[in-house]
């Protein structure tokens, strides 16, 4: 009979160990990366230069800043571009740099410049990579089973789109950007659709992670039963998805700027915390699993 494997911290005991290095700042970088690139993508699509600019700034300052704060040796950050062939961190940095470069050039072009669209589209492609690469980054690591699932990049992409859409709605309602009528009509339903899809993806992700082996199961338990269950259900599911969905349905953008702001904040809270919590519950497998009695 084997006793259940313990979850350990610094004790010299074989067991599951939570990863402790990737937390707040990495979650912030993920968050700003997705919200910023989502906003950028949507803004190119909606042809809002201000939206593009804000998206770029969120990526530059939010994501870039979080990374710089996080790095142990920030002055050497440029070295991180050395290995795009194998490293998703390298790829992400390349994508981010190219997105920023192309994006900033594009918006600084005079209106009607023929270069605008090609550059913007290139930047959108890069932004797309920025939005999803962290999903691949997490998936590509065999060490932490709950991260190591195919849904991770998909989830990243949809959260980016959701974040972008929310931000666009928000900016529009505060009067920062103008949208044509058909988009104004379309956006709320896009938002609702994305919220439903994200909710489904999160649920699918949870169901899937039960079967990612014992360490994945440990992560799952931490997330839904353990110390992280309250923030997870309250902030990620409750505030981030269910509350936003209800508000969008019941009140919607017609209810005015205040409501939109509330929805936006709720959405961003959910967005930040899902990745923060998923990082937190990352659990390594026990090194030797084979002591039998």
């Amino acid at each position, binding site marked *: 009979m084997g006793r259940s494997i313990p979850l350990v911290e610094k004790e010299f005991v*074989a067991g599951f160990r939570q990863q402790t290095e990737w937390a707040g700042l990495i979650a912030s970088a993920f968050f700003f990366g997705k919200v910023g690139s989502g906003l950028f993508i949507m803004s190119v699509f909606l042809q809002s230069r201000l939206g593009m600019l804000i998206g770029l700034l969120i990526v530059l300052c939010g994501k870039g800043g979080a990374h710089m704060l996080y790095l142990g040796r920030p002055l050497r950050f440029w070295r991180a571009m050395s290995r795009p062939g194998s490293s998703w*961190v390298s790829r992400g940095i390349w994508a981010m740099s190219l997105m920023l470069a192309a994006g900033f050039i594009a918006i600084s072009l005079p209106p009607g410049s023929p270069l605008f669209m090609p550059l913007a589209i290139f930047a959108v492609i890069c932004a797309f990579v920025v939005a999803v690469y962290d999903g691949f980054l997490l998936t590509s690591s065999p060490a932490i089973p709950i991260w190591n699932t195919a849904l991770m990049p998909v989830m990243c992409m949809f959260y980016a789109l959701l974040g972008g859409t929310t931000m666009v709605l928000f900016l529009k309602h505060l009067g920062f950007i103008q949208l044509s009528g058909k988009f104004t009509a379309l956006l709320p339903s896009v938002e609702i659709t994305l919220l439903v899809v994200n909710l489904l993806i999160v649920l699918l992700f949870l169901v899937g992670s039960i079967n990612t082996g014992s360490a994945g199961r440990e992560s799952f338990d931490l997330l839904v039963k353990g110390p992280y269950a309250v923030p997870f259900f309250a902030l990620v599911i409750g505030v981030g998805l269910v509350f936003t969905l209800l508000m969008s349905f019941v009140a919607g953008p017609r209810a005015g700027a205040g409501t939109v702001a509330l929805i936006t904040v709720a959405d961003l809270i959910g967005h930040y915390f899902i990745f923060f919590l998923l990082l937190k519950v990352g659990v390594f497998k026990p090194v030797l699993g084979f002591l039998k009695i």
Partner: protein
Amino acid sequence: MRLGMVIDLKRCVGCQACTVACKAENGTSPGIMYTKVLDQVSGTYPNVRKQFVPVLCNHCRNAPCERVCPTGATHKREDGIVLVDHDKCIGCRACYVACPYNNRIFLKRGKLKEGYYGKKMTPYERAKYPEHQDGIVEKCKFCSHRIDEGLTETSCVQTCPADARIFGNLDDPESKVSRLIRSRGGRQALCEDDTDPSVYYLD
């Protein structure tokens, strides 16, 4: 040549001499341990089994830490030793979350300003700390500096009173490590992750 280690779980008595020998050899700062010996207990009294499991970097042939490293700081030598180039590492810790064995350790910024007895460092610490940098990731080096000096044993192997750790060339079928792996059925940890560790366990 592929250097590797065999850990005989039958021999290991959990004395932690290896843990301390590694600290002494490498002069690591407080809290940093490249190797340690874990207890593994199963069963309920009186039917209890306890095993001591020494862990250290496996110097994986197919090392995820190397794959994910964006700077190339993590690299593999000809002899299979996986090392971190202190001057290249940026402290992004991608390798930390990629190592299935949780063997990578981040040295926080400022960590080298204090020794075990506070700000005033001992002569030993003053001699050893310059070998380190803060803000980067460290791990077991298979005592590459010893190997480069022509020694045949790492410090933890050198001291192990039980001879539970054995070091040698995995590519040489006649080396002690290869023979032990064959005769006793050496196992790699978490082999399902396809990392192909150079550390084998005998049980």
